[in-house]
C-alpha cells in the first residue's frame, strides 16, 4: 500500500513534497553557525566544487552579517541559494565536515547557505557593480546553471550577453528536473529573477537553437558562443513494448510533475527502471503522488550509481527495490499493463503495473552539435573541451551536463563560471 494520499490540491501537493531542507529561522541559523569550528584549510571548502569560503560565511552569519555571508557565497557560486537546497551535500561539503569524525551531526552547510542567500534575494540586495561595456558580445545557448553562471560572470566583466533558451523559464533542470521536495519552483525562479536584475543579461525564451541558419546567425553576431544545453531526452531501452502508451522517460515525467504538480495523475502501480539518481527521484516522486512503486535495477543494490542517501530517501517513502532484474518486454494492449523482467538466473517474472518510467539515462543533443563545424564530441556524445572549456571549434566554449555527461547543478555552475573567466581572458 502506498504511504501517501494522492494530492488533489496544491496544498496537498506541497505537503507530500514538503522541503527536506526547509529554510532556517534566524534562531536556528544562529545556533547552527555557532557550532562551526572555523577549521583551518577547511575540508568543507575543498569539497565544494565552487570552493565557497564556508567557514567565512558561517562566521559572518554568526556575527550577524547575513548580507556579507550572502556575498561570500555569491562571490564563488551564482546559484548560492539553489545549491544550498539541491546539492548532494551529504557527499560534498557536509560529507567532508570534520564533525563526521566525532559522531556529531555535520554542520548544516547547505541550509545555512540558503538562509543567508535567501535574505539577500528577499531584500533584493545588489552586491556587484558591472564593468563598463567592453563592446564584446557572447551568445549562450541554454539558460540552465552552466549558462546563467557564465552569463553573470561575463556581465560582471562588461560583456554583452544574450541567452537563448528553448523553454519558457530559466534555471534548466533546477526548476524542470530536480525533485520538488528539494526546491520549489518559486525558490528556483526567484533566484533567477534576482540574478537577472542584478546582472542584466538578456534571455530570449522559447527560442530553441536548432538549424544551421540559427548557428550561422550566432556566429555572425557574436564574438564567442557558449554551449550550455545540458542533456537530451531519456534514452531508448530498445525493448519490445516501449512505444506503448504510459511508458515515460524519467526526465520527461519529472518535468511534467514540476510544471503541473497535483494536476497530473499518477496511477496506482508504477515500475521505475534504473539505478541512478534520476530513477531514485522519479520513484520517490511517484510514491509521493500516491502510487505503489517498484524500482527495478538490472544489477545489484551495491552497484547502483545513485547515492546511497537517495535510495534511502526513496525507501522511506515506500519505494520497494528489486535488484538483478533486467527488463525484457513491456506488456500491454495499446496501454501498459505490466512488464516482464529477467532475473540473474534467467527466470522471467511478470509484474502488473499501469506505468513504466525509464530512469535509464539521457541522450546527448547530437543533432544540434553535429551542425557546428569542427566541434568534436567523444564516443559517448559529450562535447570535447580543453582545460579552459574551449571546444575544438575555437569560437565555442561549453560546460555543464553537455560536457560532463551529467553531474550536479553545482558542477555546472562552477564550470560555467570558469569558462566565462577563460572567455574574459581571451577576448579582453
Amino acid at each position, binding site marked *: 500500500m502506498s504511504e501517501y494520499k494522492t494530492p488533489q490540491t496544491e496544498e496537498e501537493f506541497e505537503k507530500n513534497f514538503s522541503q527536506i531542507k526547509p529554510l532556517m529561522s534566524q*534562531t536556528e541559523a544562529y545556533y547552527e553557525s*555557532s557550532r562551526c569550528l*572555523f577549521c583551518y584549510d577547511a575540508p568543507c571548502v575543498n569539497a565544494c566544487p565552487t570552493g565557497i569560503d564556508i567557514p567565512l560565511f558561517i*562566521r559572518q552569519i554568526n556575527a550577524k*552579517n547575513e548580507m556579507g555571508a550572502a556575498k561570500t557565497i555569491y562571490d564563488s557560486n551564482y546559484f548560492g541559494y539553489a545549491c544550498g537546497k539541491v546539492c548532494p551535500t551529504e557527499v560534498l561539503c557536509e560529507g567532508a565536515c570534520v564533525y563526521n569524525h566525532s559522531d556529531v551531526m555535520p554542520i548544516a552547510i547547505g541550509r545555512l547557505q540558503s538562509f543567508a542567500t535567501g535574505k539577500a534575494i528577499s531584500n533584493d540586495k545588489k552586491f556587484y557593480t558591472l564593468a563598463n561595456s567592453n563592446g564584446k558580445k557572447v551568445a549562450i545557448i541554454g539558460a540552465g546553471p552552466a549558462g546563467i553562471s557564465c552569463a553573470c560572470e561575463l556581465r560582471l566583466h562588461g560583456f554583452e550577453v544574450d541567452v537563448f533558451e528553448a523553454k519558457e523559464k530559466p534555471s534548466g533542470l533546477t526548476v524542470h528536473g530536480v525533485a520538488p521536495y528539494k526546491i520549489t519552483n518559486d525558490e528556483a525562479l526567484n533566484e533567477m529573477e534576482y540574478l537577472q536584475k542584478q546582472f542584466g543579461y538578456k534571455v530570449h525564451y522559447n527560442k530553441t537553437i536548432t538549424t544551421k541558419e540559427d548557428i550561422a546567425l550566432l556566429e555572425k553576431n557574436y564574438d564567442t558562443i557558449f554551449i550550455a544545453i545540458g542533456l537530451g531526452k531519456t534514452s531508448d531501452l530498445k525493448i519490445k513494448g516501449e512505444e506503448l502508451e504510459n511508458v515515460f522517460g524519467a526526465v520527461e515525467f519529472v518535468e511534467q510533475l514540476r510544471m503541473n504538480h497535483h494536476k497530473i495523475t499518477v496511477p496506482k502501480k508504477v515500475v521505475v527502471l534504473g539505478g541512478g539518481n534520476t530513477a531514485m527521484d522519479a520513484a520517490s516522486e511517484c510514491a509521493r503522488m500516491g502510487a505503489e512503486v517498484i524500482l527495478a535495477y538490472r544489477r545489484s543494490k551495491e552497484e547502483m550509481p545513485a547515492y546511497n542517501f537517495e535510495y534511502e530517501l526513496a525507501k522511506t517513502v515506500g519505494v520497494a527495490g528489486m535488484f538483478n532484474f533486467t527488463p525484457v518486454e513491456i506488456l500491454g494492449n495499446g496501454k501498459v499493463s505490466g512488464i516482464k523482467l529477467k532475473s540473474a538466473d534467467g527466470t522471467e517474472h511478470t509484474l502488473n503495473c499501469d506505468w513504466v518510467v525509464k530512469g535509464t539515462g539521457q541522450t546527448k543533443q547530437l543533432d544540434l552539435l553535429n551542425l557546428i563545424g569542427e566541434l568534436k564530441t567523444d564516443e559517448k556524445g559529450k562535447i570535447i573541451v580543453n582545460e579552459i572549456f574551449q571546444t575544438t571549434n575555437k569560437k565555442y566554449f561549453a560546460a555543464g551536463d553537455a560536457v560532463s555527461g551529467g553531474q550536479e547543478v553545482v558542477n555546472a555552475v562552477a564550470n560555467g563560471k570558469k569558462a566565462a573567466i577563460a572567455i574574459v581572458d581571451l577576448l579582453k
Partner: protein
Amino acid sequence: MANLQTNFAGIKSPNPFWLASAPPTNSGYQIMKAFDAGWGGAVWKTLGVPVVNVSSRYGSLNYRDTRMMGFNNIELITDRPLKDNLREIEEVKKRFPNHAVIASLMVETKEEWHAIMRDVTNAGADGVELNFGCPHGMCERGMGSAVGQEPKILKMIVEWVKEVATIPVIVKLTPNISDITRLAVAAVEGGGDAISLINTIQSIIGVDIDNFVPYPIVDGKSTNGGYCGPAVKPIAMNMLKNCAQHPQVKIPISGIGGVENWRDAVEFILLGASSVQVCTAVMHYGFGIIREMILGLEQYMDEKGFKTLDDFRGKALPNIVHWEDLNMKYKVVADINEDKCIGCQLCYTACEDGAHQAIGLSDDLLNRKPHIIEENCVGCNLCSVVCPVEDCITMQRKDDGKENITWKERTLAGDIPETFNDELAGGLHHWVPEPVDALSKKIPLHYKVK
C-alpha cells in the same frame, strides 16, 4: 567604498586590526604571515630581559559547548634573544613598509629603557608599546603591572622613554586597578603619545577538583594568571569608555580585550578606540579570522555611509551618561510574540523567581505560552534576554515620549522620595504576591515531590 586606513598617533596601517603583543607576534614568521592574511599591524611580543618559562601555561574557561570564552596564561615576555627579534623587525618592515610594526617593551632601569628604545628604533619599528600590564611573573621582578599599578612610577618611566623617543610611544595599561583613568592620566602627564588597554586581568581560571589544584598545573602547583578572551570584553569596553571620556585623556587609544569579530571592533571604535588589538581569538582560530573582520567592518561602514574610521569613532560616547541623567519617564514593557513563542517558559520562571512576578501562565495547562502581566512589568529586559527565540520577546515603549525628568533634575527641584512610591514597583500599579501564596502554587506539576 569604506576606507579602513588608520593613523594611530602617527603610526599608519592599512586597517585598524592589529595583533596584540602575545604569542601570535612571537616571530617575524608569524607577523609576515598575518600581514599577508590581511592584518594591518602587529605589536611584537614584549621584548626585555632574558626569561625562562614554565611548561603548561594556559587554562581555558569553557561555557557549555563554547571553548575558550575566557583564557588565562602564566607566560612571561619573549623568551627569544633580543638580537633575533631586532633582525626580524627589520626584515618585516622591509617587506611590509606600510604595515604597523610596534615593539612592546618591558625593562627595569632607565639605562635599559634608553638602550632598548635605541635598538628597536634602529630596527625600524613604527612605534613602541610600554608593557606595564603583565599581571604575573614579571611583577615579582619589579616589572609589569607592579609598576603599572603605581601612577607615579608609570609616569616616571614614560618620561624616561620620552627623553630618547623619536617614534610614537604607546602606554599599555593594566586593568588590575580600581580606577584605570589614573594610569591613563599618568601616561598623558609622562608625555605618552597614546594608550592601549586592557592587558590581562588577574585570575584563577578553574580548579581541578580531584587533585585540588588550579589550572594550569605545573607539577601539582599553579599560580594566578592573566585572563583575556571574549569574556573580558565588557570590562575592557568600560575601561576604554572611562579613558575616552576623561577630559585629560586626549591621546589615541588602542582597544584590546575579547575582540573576535567585526562587531566587537565596531563597538570598540564607537567607544573611542582608534585601533583594536587581538590576541585570544587568533590563538583560537588563527590569522584567518581577519577576513570576516575586514569584510564585516567595510560592509557596516558602507551601510551606514561612513567613509573613514573618524566618521564614527567615539560616536557612542555622548550617549553614555551618569545614571542620574537618565530619563525616569521612559517606560518599556515586555511583549511576547505568540507566533514565535515555543513555550519553554524560561521567561516565566526568570521573571517569577528572579524578577517581578510579571509573567503569568495560562490556566489551560496545554497552552504553554506565557503572557505578560503588564501592570507588574518594570521593563527590566530579563525575559527578553533569557528567551531562546530571536525577536520573540520585545520591549515596547509605553510612555508618550513627551516627558523627560532625570534624577538629577528631580532632586535639584527638591523632589526627593520620602516613601517608596516608585511607579514601577512596590506601590502604585505593581503588586507583590503574599509570601504564603508561594506555598499554594500549583505549577510546575513536578515541583513538589509527593
